[in-house]
């Protein structure tokens, strides 16, 4: 065994080669991503938010949302003890903001994954199978595409029980058509290439072609789409919670805004109750949008979003 003497590529099996290729393309991706300043900024902001959300049990703890043991008196303006003031029950708003990031980010993430998964499934199958199936699928996609998504999500959230899963489902099953259209277009482009014909000639079935050849090729697109979709899912979650359709037992940024409005923070001018959750929502949404656009322009310079 003289492994040290021979160059690794010469002896490596197909798996090692594939791993090497994947690592190379990841490095290449990162090199190009690094040139997008806005994308880096978004990534840094996301890392910060993720850190805050993940360490929330250590920094604030779940009892921050308890109404009975509230430390302050209701509606206190910002002070040394409560940097962002207190809410209508006397709870610390900074603590609530940190605790609320968990639900907002979790729902945003899950809803986006669900939505993109549905979109990718519909897109790949509609691009792979021709005929009646594709026609019907694309008619449904077009129909969903023009539907007012939020109205549909509201309608779904109204008829189901108030819970986190409901919100995720309501956002996920209404926001997939854009992804489906993008993925289908990419699938059609991939399937026109000669190596798909070769795979078919060697006896590759539908499943083999879709999972081993088409999926890896649409994956970058799916990744970019997920990033963009998280941004709109976070906004959608805030909107549903603001309309009172969220889980009332959980603290989220949209829920905090609804609380503030119900407590009359608007007419009494208690800006400290309203401003921080909105800024948090906008920052997270913006950060994901910036990342998504940077990923998109790295993968597909022709789109030209960040030229």
């Amino acid at each position: 065994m003289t492994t040290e003497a021979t160059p690794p590529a010469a002896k490596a099996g197909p798996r090692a080669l594939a791993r090497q290729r994947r690592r190379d393309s990841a490095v290449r991706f990162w090199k190009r991503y690094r040139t997008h300043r806005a994308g880096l900024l978004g990534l840094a902001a996301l890392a910060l938010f993720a850190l805050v959300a993940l360490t929330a049990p250590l920094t604030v703890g779940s009892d921050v949302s308890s109404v009975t043991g509230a430390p302050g008196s209701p509606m206190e303006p910002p002070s040394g003890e409560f940097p962002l003031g207190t809410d209508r029950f006397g709870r610390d708003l900074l603590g609530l903001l940190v605790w609320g990031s968990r639900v907002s980010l979790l729902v945003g993430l899950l809803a986006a994954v669900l939505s993109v998964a549905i979109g990718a499934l519909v897109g790949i199958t509609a691009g792979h199978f021709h005929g009646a199936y594709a026609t019907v699928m694309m008619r449904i996609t077009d129909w969903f595409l023009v539907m007012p998504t939020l109205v549909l999500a509201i309608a779904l959230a109204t008829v189901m029980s108030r819970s986190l899963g409901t919100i995720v489902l309501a956002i996920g099953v209404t926001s997939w058509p854009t992804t489906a259209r993008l993925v289908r277009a990419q699938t059609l482009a991939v399937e026109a290439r000669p190596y798909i014909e070769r795979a078919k000639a060697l006896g590759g079935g539908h499943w083999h072609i879709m999972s081993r050849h088409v999926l890896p090729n649409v994956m970058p697109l799916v990744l970019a789409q997920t990033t963009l979709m998280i941004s709109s899912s976070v906004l959608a979650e805030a909107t549903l919670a603001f309309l009172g359709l969220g889980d009332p037992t959980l603290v989220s940024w949209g829920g905090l805004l609804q609380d503030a409005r119900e407590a009359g923070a608007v007419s009494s001018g208690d800006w400290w109750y309203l401003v921080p959750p909105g800024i948090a929502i906008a920052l997270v949404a913006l950060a994901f949008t910036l990342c998504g656009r940077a990923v998109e322009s790295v993968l597909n310079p022709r789109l030209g979003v960040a030229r």
Partner: protein
Amino acid sequence: MTADLPSAPVDKAGGTALAGPPAPGPQARTSTAYLRYIAGKVGGAAVSLLAVLVTSFFLFRLIPGDPVKYMTGGRQVSAEQLAAYRREFGLDLPLWQQFTDYCGKALTGDLGTSYQFRAPVIDKIAEALPNTLVLTGTAFVLYTALGVFLGTRSAWRHGRLGDRLNTGLALTLYSIPSFWLGLLLIIVFSVGMGPVPGLFPTGGMESGGEEGFAYVIDVAHHLMLPVITLVAVEYGQTLLVSRSALLDEMGSDYLTTARAKGLRDDLVRRRHAVPNAMLPTVTLVFVNLGRTVAGVILVETVFSWPGLGGLFYQALSVPDLPLVQGLFFVFASAVIVMNTLADLIYPLLDPRVGR
């Protein structure tokens, strides 16, 4: 809500029409092709509307529990009263019969009776519709004009400071929840904050008691903040769409030709580049109307505007199912109808489409 950033090539009209062979020959063939194109679009819209009708029926029958419970609002009622309620709203019939009744009535404009107001849903909608049209129409015209204006200018000078500022601001405003912006504007400009006095009313559409010209001024005064909110959160989308549409045209040969003829830069942009960039923009502006509907619901709620969105919020909080269902139908069909209109206008903008 969907992230319809300009990357989404949702060019329906272009997709179907450009695929067809070019139509050679006399004018008559072109017009029959156009009629066939129109018939196809209108037929598609009719199928979509039917799908909305069916969805709105079955969606609101999914609800767990008894709708009558929502009507009584938890009050103690006898079994006879419950039965009477069921009969009144037709809930004692089998599902298929409810469905045929519902379809038949919907075709004649009867969308049921609101639980909350004890009035026909169609009357409540007719009452609120003009108010929503005033708000949405004003905002739509303003944000489309602003978005296209800034977007084409951005693209023409892409990469410069002005472009980056424009795009950055548009992306930021695009990420802001519309209802939050509305609440902030109310705090600053209606309640008054620091040196800023309360300039605008906190909500509603009129102060009451005004007539004639004074009434128009009063409504415009109330309209100001809601329109600003809607324009601020919606123009970014149009900006990004028209920007990337124009960027796609930037390298084209006909622009070089126009410049070589000695046309001024401004004329090249306005006469040659922008008209071509408008084609995909028109489609996307209408496809994105769905997002505007969401914005309208939230803005009307925040500003207590007596329109469809405000009504939707009131209906949700009960929940007043016939009203929610009726409004769902109205919102969805409004977007479908507008999209079909856009499809019908499209061949007039681009003669290649619909041949």
